[in-house]
């Protein structure tokens, strides 16, 4: 059985122009990136679109990747910046009334879209638990929400610190205030 290539090996091959090697990095990390973006956008299509754009930007900017952090945290940083830009733009558009208002943090439409996509009752319980959690996360500041979303997608404290370019101490203290707000909201 062949040993799977490490991210570093795939990055090295991709930098040499091997798009197939970059495809391996997409397979490995895009799902996680799109998942935490879903907690920011509350719209599966918008999250997937931003995740795709982040990976395309990473591919084009691979020459600037110095390898001081892991590929995962580097591409997560690109994705977070992409998401923040898009959210700012969406906010401005809605402020200028260019877009029709849509259901958002208070629940409504996006939750219904997700519920209608579930295949059966086995998934109901986990999805409802997740939606409860997302409603509690709506009380968090943008930074707290980013950290909580990354944590729920399995990022370590160190990976979050690298993705957000902050210290691990900052991640810990932000997580402390975030979990206390969530606890209050869920009780």
């Amino acid at each position, binding site marked *: 059985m062949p040993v799977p290539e490490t991210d570093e090996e795939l990055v090295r091959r991709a930098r040499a122009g091997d798009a197939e090697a970059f495809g391996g990095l997409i397979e490995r990390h*895009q799902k996680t990136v799109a998942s935490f973006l879903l907690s920011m956008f509350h719209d599966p299509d918008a999250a997937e679109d931003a995740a795709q754009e982040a990976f395309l930007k990473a591919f084009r900017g691979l020459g600037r990747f110095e390898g001081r952090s892991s590929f995962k945290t580097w591409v997560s940083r690109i994705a977070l910046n992409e998401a923040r830009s898009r959210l700012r*733009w969406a906010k401005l558009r809605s402020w200028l009334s260019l877009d029709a208002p849509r259901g958002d943090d208070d629940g409504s439409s996006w939750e219904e879209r997700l519920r209608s996509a579930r295949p059966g009752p086995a998934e109901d319980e*986990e999805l409802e638990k997740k939606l409860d959690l997302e409603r509690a996360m709506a009380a968090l500041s943008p930074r707290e929400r980013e950290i909580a979303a990354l944590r729920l997608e399995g990022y370590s404290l160190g990976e979050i610190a690298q993705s957000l370019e902050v210290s691990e101490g900052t991640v810990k203290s932000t*997580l402390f205030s975030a979990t206390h707000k969530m606890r209050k909201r869920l009780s």
Partner: protein
Amino acid sequence: MNCRALQEDLWSSWPRAEVGPEAEAHARSCAECARELDSFRALCARSSTKGGEPLSWDKSLPGDGRWARLAASTRKRLLEPARRSAPVWAPALAAAAAGLALFLIARPVPKPATDVPMAAAEQLEFFEHLDLFENWDAVRAMPGGAP
């Protein structure tokens, strides 16, 4: 282990309910930390799957092949020439244009230039007050006056 150290460690391991033996021992002898530990475990339970894994979107969304489709679509776009991305610079450009328009409207308008050549001003004054020169003798007496 003191209360502060226990609580910091506890919450930074969320959503995994990982509690070390030292923290467990401390909580047994401290009512406040015991309550904190219960609260932590309750939140972890609400943030995890039945199997104790963090409740990621991957675990809560139906596995309908969405990630495979996304990966395939991204791979396809890798090979396309670079496309123009969403115009995230447009708000900045709009703000700059609005700022420039405001500046042009509100800036102080400079007064028209008043530095008319002195000789022309004197001539103009002379003709405007020609009636003062009815005394043609005086006019004739002026240097370069009428003959």
